[in-house]
């Protein structure tokens, strides 16, 4: 297994499948009475969060605890992190504490890469700036597999602010590795220049959501921050929602079996309407549950549990 999980590109198809299979096994165990496995007893997992993300932190914390690891939460609030200590000094502190794994969320793209060069333990990227969020992509793939039975051969549309989305980058990389066909969709201002060659030669780009919807198995809606309109990425939230939001009418264009995903937190009324988010197609709640299993698998495999 690899040492760090910094990018979804760190996983080849074999390793990615191993993570998903392991997550499925661990989910089985968790659904039984015994919620805790002794696998990582005596190992220390540090959650180093420079951004508020309660849902991701809790997910990693639950994952580590179910594997019996000691968990230390190092959040930006109320610690030396907020007093301007450098990432390197924090890394040296974690190193001295004997952290076996550091789960890091950071507003700067690439911060986990820097951290990995300063600590001996494994580094798991829990979201870095506008770069990647590989465990989100793993849990999304896991969710697709459990709903649709496979990932290879699926057509996945990723819709919205691809430019600023770490979820989109990780998903494109992981899903194409696993043999899915991926189309990113959004206003041209929110699709990175050269995104195709950058992420995958097979990646498709479309600016027309309605044209793509009838052909997809999965539609993944990305969060779009309202403030982007102040930077002229789009004229208004109303126009955005009209062109790229997923409402009930659009949902009816999807094939019968297609599912709707969202990494959360959602901006209801912007990229997704409440009736879509709460529909039977929506996997939003499962995604949260699957997150714990997938993160257990990642920690288990990175730390060489067993």
């Amino acid at each position, binding site marked *: 297994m690899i040492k760090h999980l910094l990018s979804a590109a760190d996983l080849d198809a074999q390793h990615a499948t191993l993570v998903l299979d392991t997550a499925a096994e661990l989910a089985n165990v968790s659904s039984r009475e015994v919620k805790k496995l002794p696998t990582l007893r005596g190992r220390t997992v540090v959650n180093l969060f420079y951004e508020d993300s309660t849902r991701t932190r809790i997910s990693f914390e639950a994952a580590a605890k179910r594997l019996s690891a000691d968990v230390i939460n190092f959040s930006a609030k109320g610690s030396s992190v907020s007093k301007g200590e*450098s*990432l*390197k000094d924090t890394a040296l502190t974690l190193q001295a504490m004997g952290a076996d794994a550091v789960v890091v969320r*950071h507003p*700067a*793209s*690439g*911060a986990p*890469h*820097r951290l990995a*060069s300063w600590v001996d333990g494994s580094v798991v990227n829990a979201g*870095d*700036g*506008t*770069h*990647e969020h590989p465990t989100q992509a793993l849990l999304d793939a896991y969710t697709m597999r459990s709903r649709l039975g496979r990932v290879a051969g699926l057509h996945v549309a990723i819709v919205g602010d691809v430019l600023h989305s*770490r979820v989109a*980058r990780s998903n494109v990389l992981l899903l194409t590795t696993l043999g899915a066909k991926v189309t990113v969709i959004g206003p041209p201002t929110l699709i*990175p*220049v*050269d*995104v195709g*060659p*950058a*992420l995958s030669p097979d990646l498709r780009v479309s600016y027309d959501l309605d044209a793509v919807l009838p052909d997809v198995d999965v539609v993944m809606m990305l969060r779009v921050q309202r403030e982007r309109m102040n930077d002229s990425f789009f004229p208004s939230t109303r126009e955005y929602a009209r062109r790229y939001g997923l409402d009930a009418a659009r949902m009816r264009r999807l094939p019968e079996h297609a599912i709707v995903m969202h990494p959360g937190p959602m901006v209801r009324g912007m990229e997704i309407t409440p009736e879509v988010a709460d529909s039977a197609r929506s996997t939003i709640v499962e995604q949260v549950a699957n997150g714990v299993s997938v993160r257990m698998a990642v920690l288990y495999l990175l730390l060489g549990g067993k």
Partner: protein
Amino acid sequence: MSSTTYLVKGVSVVGAEPTDLLVRDGVVLEAGASAQNAQVIDADGLVALPGLVDLHTHLREPGREDAETVESGSRAAALGGYTAVCAMANTSPVADTAGVVEQVWRLGREAGLVDVQPIGAVTVGLAGQHLAELGAMATSAAKVRIFSDDGHCVSDPRLMRRALEYVKAFDGVIAQHAEEPRLTEGAQMHEGEISARLGLTGWPAVAEEAIIARDALLAGHVGARLHVCHVSTAGSVDVLRQAKAAGVRVTAEVTPHHLLLTDERASSYDPVFKVNPPLRTQKDVAALRAALAEGLIDIVATDHAPHAMEDKECEWAYARPGMLGLETALSIVLDVLGPDWPLIADRMSRTPARIAGLTDHGHLPAAGAPATFTLVDPAARWQVDPTASASRSRNTPYAGMTLPGRVVATFLRGEPTVLDGKAVK
């Protein structure tokens, strides 16, 4: 003046047949002059170049003496074969008054390793609002001729026009850091494939090209001299070609790092590769090399930008842009252009000296000329060790690379500043 006489034996002046150079009282003497009591420097196999002139150096003093001082930067320059450097104005306080430029000029004289020619700021505090007292800096002891807000673009077209016009009165030149700021807000690296993958905000090539085009038109309109700092894109080369063909008095520089490195380096997220303008693509590198050889880009300038450890050992987005360059520039140009010594002499000494108005520099070491030259061992190869740098900073992007050509000695007006590859002081 020096009382020591030096006899440089068997040196090849810019690649010509080996000859002897006799140096005394600051100048190269006629062949056949008495070499009695001369200190002999065996220059067998060495090439003599006119002392290199850097049009773009950040010496950080006053203000960031922890990163570099005039003295430490001068030493790094001498070791790199330089005899003159133009010190950028973005110090703290900013070099926007006669007082500050004279201070830097004096510190350079005291260090005595290279001629330190201060560059004055175009606008007060580099703020892009009001012209600094350009005339006062021009008539100060520092005799400033180059003005630049480097690090910031003079983006206001009216202000740029006025600056270009105003410095005509004393044959000044505006050295523009070409970057349309509205197109580069939050920018971290070249906008393209790699930035898309790394999730770093892109710095589009057009932000540079648009300003060069605008400035060239302005310079042509008012008949002024424009110098373009650190040209980094293939598109900029096209713009320069057009401007020069139209007779605009424009000169341009390229840095060694833009001639050698590409944006692929950012994939490590190591900010030692963060620089402004950013490293570009292989296509840009190829266009810049060709333009330098052709003369569309007139000179190589280092943009030597020392930074303290804490400003580089951090997250990419939080790091300051810039990299060391003085001690590695000649080796990289040699690597890129090959041993075309007359070309190297032109791009690294003669033409930069002419642009900067440094009349003591840029001359081939021949009888009657100032004894301001550097001796290079073209056969030597050396590995870049950041800890061995004379700079106070360590932010070289070439760490561990093996480069061709080593400076053996540097002379400034007959006085050695470097001998046996070591600074004399």
